[in-house]
């Protein structure tokens, strides 16, 4: 592994993966305990519409993706705020709408065509210094928000109705959570792709939930799992010369499928 890191692009890829892991571990935990994986998938995929908007109107991709995914997140928050479990049709529609919008806008943009695949699976080997800086800033923003409002996020996630009765602004926090999901998408869609976003949001947190005593420890464990998946994935991708984003997902998926065996062993020990 060490000799791999003599290349700057590999170092940057590793840093990008680790920075993405921090955001995904924290927000992924909130996504999993609130059971809004489908909403997150919707925001991540609809963000592709932002890619189309950016290219059609000649904006910076990050502005297009960021603006559009925040708008989609706000619409989804408004739809789901009162009936979280009965809005899956609307989420599905927004999901497909965003992607279709992206494809069509890129079709009608004259000249150069972007590669859909690079946004779906990312291009982690082309991460630049400024990408890393942006990821670091967004990590710090998310970290600060979740530390500051930890007990309030914990309360709405565990028992929203009770939290509301106790004066916690559950609706505001629901909007804030979906906005943070949009930020995570912006931060890593170009780097690791929107399919990897949803994999890193859900799989590490889902595995960690089983071994965690508190939401805080679930967040930390998720970050660790996510870092592990990224490092193993990058190493395998380099060793076998295969696509890095997809390899990272394969590692995460492998852990996802075999972890029930470990859980059973851990249960037997007790």
């Amino acid at each position, binding site marked *: 592994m060490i000799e791999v890191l003599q290349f700057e692009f590999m170092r940057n890829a590793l840093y990008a993966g680790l920075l993405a892991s921090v955001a995904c571990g924290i927000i992924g935990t909130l996504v999993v*305990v609130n*059971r809004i994986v489908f909403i997150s998938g919707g925001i991540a995929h609809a963000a592709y519409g932002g890619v189309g908007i950016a290219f059609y109107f000649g904006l910076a991709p990050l502005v297009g993706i960021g603006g559009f995914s925040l708008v989609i997140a706000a619409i989804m928050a408004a739809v789901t705020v009162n009936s979280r479990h009965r809005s899956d049709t609307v989420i599905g529609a927004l999901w497909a709408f965003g992607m279709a919008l992206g494809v069509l806008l890129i079709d009608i943009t004259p000249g150069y065509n972007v590669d859909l695949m690079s946004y779906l699976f990312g291009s982690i080997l082309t991460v630049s210094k400024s990408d890393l800086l942006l990821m670091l800033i967004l990590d710090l923003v998310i970290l600060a928000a979740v530390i*500051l*409002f*930890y*007990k*309030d996020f*914990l*309360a709405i*996630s*565990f*028992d929203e*109705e*009770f*939290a*509301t*009765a*106790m*004066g*916690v*602004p559950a609706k505001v926090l629901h909007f804030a959570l979906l906005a943070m999901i949009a930020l995570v998408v912006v931060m890593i869609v170009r780097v690791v792709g929107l399919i990897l976003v949803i994999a890193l949001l859900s799989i590490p947190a889902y595995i960690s*939930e*089983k071994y*965690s*005593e*508190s*939401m805080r*420890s*679930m967040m930390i464990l998720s970050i660790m799992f996510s870092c592990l998946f990224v490092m193993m994935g990058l190493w395998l991708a380099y060793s076998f010369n295969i696509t890095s984003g997809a390899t990272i997902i394969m590692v995460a998926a492998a852990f996802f499928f075999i972890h029930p065996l470990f859980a059973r062993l851990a249960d037997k020990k007790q």
Partner: protein
Amino acid sequence: MHTWAVEIQDLWFSYNDHQVLQEVNLNIAEKAFLAILGPNGSGKTTLLKLMLGVLKPDRGWVRIFGQEPHKVVHKIGYVPQDTNINKSFPISVFDATLMGRLGHAKRARRYSAHDRAMAQKALETVGMWEQRKRHIGKLSGGQRQRVFIARALAGDPDILFMDEPTASVDREFQTELYEFLRKLNESVTILVVSHDLSVLSSYIKSVACVNQKLFYHDAAEITSEMLDMAYHCPVELVAHGLPHRVLRDHEDD
């Protein structure tokens, strides 16, 4: 000036065009011990959520100690039904109990030492302090109910709202709970919502029956009109072996 613990004026509420509550008027004095009864789907839990400010009425208003519910959250204790809790949620008994302090705690702050002390006291009261580190999903239904009661008590409430508090607890704890509530009632207003007439005990001071409309009776008994209105099959309910003091001959009214 006299303030009511709860004041409800001409309250209407509907879910997706389905009228759940209409024309509800209710005044509850401080230190009342009221049972709100009604069959499943009668709107009694909805009424509770309206009093807590979790739901907003279509028409009319609710005041708790003379103010809107969201302004007196630090005076409110709430024990919800044990039905829709996520059992895999990673949280300890103690951390769940601390949430009872949310009405006092400031936003964007951690819980204080006082908050923790109050949570400890509440857990000791319900006999769950030894279990404080356990995962909430690993408790039995009765133990979890004790924790939810502790969570409500941790906020040191002036009014306590309980939704089916004895649904999942054993007989023994049920008796213990009502004995405890009777003592608590010396300083705290208590409202208990139930579909089960067995909550009517000698501790309860007044009864309201809900079935879209609300009928209030300032004594621990149900008139036959209230029963007829709230339940369509009074005979079946009476046959559950209730203490007969609960029912009064309709000639008396």
